[in-house]
């Protein structure tokens, strides 16, 4: 199709001048400096783990290449040799117009260290793209880059543009579909400046606090909880020097971004660029591994899908969109595999059951083995016959390193993984003598250690696991949330003064105020009705018009006509109380006057007995609370209403019947009007007798 060409040319044509001056560079961190993918990452770097059969780093590099980046510096740390070997043997080393340079380091323990090292090498000469090797995207950089450059021209302090994407977090688990925690960002909607970034909000508190100056300085601020951080940043050179100046910066987001936002160093600013139709996501944990794999299979990342990326015909999209891959796996008969990831050279014997597990290269499952949801089997593990691997357990040939650091994010990746490699060699060597020793852990004939889960961490395990969140967990969370809501509702009255901000800032959002809202609504509705009624009285508005007005109010507040009757009666009685009177009889006369004048109004909202009973109850409530003067007059007023045919005798009798069973304290008014009710009953009987 001729017309299809347009899209292609538009994508390719980037500003030639800009590119000519600085070839676009990128820093790719081939190490995430976390432990989330352990134990697999002890043996193989995360960026080389297969994602839909292709090492993750390929997705990142392919994207960078197509986005017009010409020079990529791959920073390798843990297992650097594997990464370098891979890159050298891959197609990436021989691309025209796209050079991949590796930078090796053995003592970097964080992204901060990596950037400091790159700064020392002095290889970055202009704006660059900072990305980690586990990011999958198909966005076009052109626009984001242009925005970044334009901003730089106007304001030299705009040093970084962060790519964000809309993604609604789950209201129940408060985590995104990628398994990361809900992220709060405050963004100036006009300039797109990032003002606040919090990825570890404390939900127990139920609110987040913003700096007052933030609102004072910006004419408008939008607080988002539905944005996902894509971990693709367009940075200026200053970013590198900032890392060098602040040698305590380790984590890109937690330290650097927050540091810039909070400390306001030299007025540096961070901006955001939101992508809509294109895809970008980072594999942060096993859950996102699962999610992104499925996104890729559903082709959200097109054209970075396996059949396109993989040059050989190993993977092909066949008809009906099924992928077929040659994996050299042996799978026995009667095996159930559900939602699992099985890598190369895996042997699964007869009768095994796998549910939502990750099974690495070379694993052997002996017959009848069962993997419960969320299990991770690292390289070459052997699971014994009939052995059931408990849910969420991680199994590896390597023993679990003792945890040195409580901060899971800041792992000293290199030191531990280095020893890990050594140990693995040793282990492979004398696996035979060890066998009997290890066997007990994984059933007969099993090889491998089941890693212990640290106290407290277990609760969190399901959040990041490959397995979907079990339903009972969801139910439990839902219940917890409901409880939270109740708590919130109690606090609600105090906080609701700050109304608008709260609904935005609070992750739990507007719904949780529903209960309280409806009560609030009723109070204000009652006030409105009263005002309308008073106006009607003072301005002699016709009854018909008053009915109309009250009806309009009823609709706008979404109230039932029951509420109207109560509200009108309340206003009438209030008027009676408030008009000057000296004695109870005078009050009675007042009330009688008002009721007589406005009986038609009241009557038009009392269609059935229930509504009439409601009026009596309302009256009772008034007598107890707001207008105690009426307490004495209760039976008289009741009689008056009966006389005026506002209340039918059925309604009064039923009210009486209902009250019969109530507490003594509730029966006060019933007792007072006993005579009247007695009279009513007798009248009824007489009527019946007459009928006979």
């Amino acid at each position, binding site marked *: *199709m*001729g*017309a*299809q*060409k*347009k*899209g*292609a040319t538009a*994508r*390719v044509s980037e500003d030639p001048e800009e590119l000519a001056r600085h070839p676009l560079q990128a820093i790719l961190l081939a190490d995430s400096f976390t432990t989330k993918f352990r134990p697999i990452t002890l043996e193989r770097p995360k960026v080389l783990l297969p994602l839909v059969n292709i090492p993750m780093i390929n997705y990142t590099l*392919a994207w960078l290449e*197509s986005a017009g980046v010409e020079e990529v510096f791959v920073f390798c740390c843990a297992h650097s040799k594997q990464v370098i070997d891979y890159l050298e043997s891959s197609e990436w080393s*021989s*691309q*025209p117009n796209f050079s991949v340079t590796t930078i090796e380091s053995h003592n970097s323990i964080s992204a901060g260290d990596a950037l400091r090292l790159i700064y020392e090498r002095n290889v970055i000469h202009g704006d660059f793209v900072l990305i980690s090797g586990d990011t999958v995207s*198909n966005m076009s950089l052109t626009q984001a880059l242009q925005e970044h450059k334009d901003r730089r021209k106007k304001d030299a302090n705009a040093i970084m543009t962060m790519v964000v*994407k*809309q*993604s*609604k977090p*789950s209201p*129940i*688990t408060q*985590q995104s*579909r990628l*398994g990361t925690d809900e992220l709060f960002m405050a963004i100036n909607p006009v300039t797109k400046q990032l003002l606040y970034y919090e990825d570890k909000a404390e939900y127990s508190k139920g609110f987040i606090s913003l700096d007052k100056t933030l609102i004072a300085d910006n004419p408008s601020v939008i607080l988002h909880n*539905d944005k*996902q951080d894509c971990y693709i940043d367009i940075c200026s050179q200053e970013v590198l020097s900032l890392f060098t100046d602040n040698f305590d910066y380790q984590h890109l987001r937690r330290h650097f971004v927050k540091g810039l936002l909070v400390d306001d160093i030299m007025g540096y600013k961070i901006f955001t660029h939101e992508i*809509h*139709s*294109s*895809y970008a996501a980072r594999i942060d944990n096993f*859950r996102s591994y*699962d*999610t992104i794999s*499925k*996104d890729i299979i*559903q*082709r*959200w*990342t*097109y*054209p970075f899908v396996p059949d*396109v*990326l993989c*040059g*050989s*015909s*190993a993977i*092909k*999209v066949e*008809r009906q*969109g099924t992928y077929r891959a040659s994996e050299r796996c042996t799978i026995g008969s009667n095996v159930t595999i559900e*939602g699992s990831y099985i890598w190369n050279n895996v042997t699964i014997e007869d009768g095994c059951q796998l549910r*939502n597990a990750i099974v690495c290269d070379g694993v052997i499952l002996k017959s009848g083995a069962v993997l419960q949801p969320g299990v991770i089997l690292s390289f070459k593990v052997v699971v014994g016959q009939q052995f059931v691997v408990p849910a969420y357990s991680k199994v590896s040939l390597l023993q679990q390193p003792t945890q040195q650091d409580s901060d899971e994010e800041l792992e000293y990746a290199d030191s531990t993984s280095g020893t890990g490699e050594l140990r693995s060699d040793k282990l492979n060597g004398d696996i035979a003598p060890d066998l009997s020793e290890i066997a007990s852990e994984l059933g007969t004939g099993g090889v491998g250690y089941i890693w212990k889960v640290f106290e407290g961490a277990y609760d969190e395990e399901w959040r990041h696991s490959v*397995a*979907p*969140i079990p*339903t009972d967990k*969801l139910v439990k969370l839902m219940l917890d949330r409901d409880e939270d809501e109740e708590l919130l509702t109690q606090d609600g009255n105090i906080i609701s003064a700050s109304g608008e901000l709260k609904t935005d800032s609070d992750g739990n959002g507007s719904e949780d105020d529903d209960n309280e809202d409806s009560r609030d609504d009723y109070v204000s509705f009652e006030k409105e009705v009263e005002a309308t009624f008073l106006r009607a009285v003072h301005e002699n508005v016709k009854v018909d018009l008053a009915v109309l007005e009250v009806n309009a109010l009823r609709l706008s507040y979404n109230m039932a006509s029951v509420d109207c009757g109560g509200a009108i009666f309340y206003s009438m009685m209030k008027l009676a109380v408030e008009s000057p009177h000296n004695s109870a009889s005078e009050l009675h006369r007042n009330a009688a006057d008002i009721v007589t004048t406005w009986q038609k109004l009241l009557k038009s909202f009392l269609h059935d007995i229930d509504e009439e009973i409601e009026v009596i109850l309302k009256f009772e409530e008034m007598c107890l609370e707001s207008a105690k003067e009426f307490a004495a007059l209760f039976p008289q007023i009741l009689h008056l209403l009966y006389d005026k045919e506002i209340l039918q005798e059925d309604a009064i009798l039923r009210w009486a019947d209902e009250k019969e069973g109530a507490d003594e304290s509730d029966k006060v008014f019933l007792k007072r009007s006993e005579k009247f009710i007695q009279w009513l009953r007798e009248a009824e009987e007489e009527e019946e007798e007459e009928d006979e």
Partner: protein
Amino acid sequence: MPDTQALVNDFLNKLKKRKIEGSQATAKQTAELLRSVISQTRMPYTNQASALIHSVKAVGERLIAANPVELAVGNVVRRVLHIIREEDLSLTTAAMAGLNLSAESDDEDDTDRDNHPALSAAAIAAASRSTLRPPSLQTLLEDVPDSAAVPHTSSSGGDSEGKSKSADKSSRSRKLKHDVIEAVNELIQDISTCRELIAEQAVEHIHQNEVILTLGSSRTVLEFLCAAKEKKRSFRVFVAEGAPRYQGHLLAKELVTRGLQTTLITDSAVFAMISRVNMVIVGAHAVMANGGVIAPVGLNMVALAAQKHAVPFVVLAGSHKLCPLYPHHPEVLLNELRSPSELLDFGEFSDCLDFGSGIGAPLLHVVNPTFDYVPPKLVSLFITDTGGHNPSYMYRLIADYYSADDLVLERRTASGN
């Protein structure tokens, strides 16, 4: 050699990343690339034709593998192979003829052919073409004696020649390459002018006050319609927007700037409007050997609607879109699934796409295929650069353009890896 290698890699990359869109551009670039491959191929002493075929095939296989959905690549590769075979054949038959006529003077034969090479090559190619396809009534009537004689010489001619006439060989090797490159140049020319050639026929098909319906956007269709407009035909065009890429919007805009009365409708309104339409004119992604059409998604529906109301369904396709394969062929990838983001916004629906809760798979699935298949019985007419053809005539055209030996190109690729 190294720079062709770089060229090939570059082109492979582009194909893989889907950076070249549009059959015509792809076809043209493929042909140009193969031309440089041919010119860089070192010619061996004997059997040059098979050397050329070998090197073209090697590159061609990789190109096809890079983007199996773009059938134009395979088509052009096969046509270039066919050209090599034809030129080789014409040279050998000419040599044989020369041998027969003037067996004593080899030099004269060479000079003779050098004087008017294009003429003789073309003429003999035309004659030998008939030997490559199954005999039809036409060929039987036209040149019975030739077709009987040629096959025998073609099979053994090259080798026996090489042994006996080495001096002739070296000049012929240069000659073969030269002729092949000439012919590939012609092919490139054909590809780039196919739209004009198709558009020239517009007046014969579009008549005064007619209503034409088209779906999506195709440059060929645009030029076809505009050509009719330029010839002072006044007619109206209904454009179905062509979801999900909505290229019909662009086409409508373009048509309006050229002064055509245009109506834009949704794809789903096609059936409602078809009764007012005189002719459906659409572009195609590829035309298969059976006359079936691979076309942008939604066209099958249009074709069915047209059939229901007996409206002619006309497909415009340059000859580079003629694919010698059949749609039931297992190597033919009929479709490409593009990103679902063309259909809906990921962010808006991200909560419906959560894999993390419940059964582990979202209830929402989005599928975005690019192409549709229109069976030949729904197509009334194909208009190619060589004129109008019936769907049932496609295989004849294909026999003109491709040699049967090359059809299996892809099967070898698949089994080779």
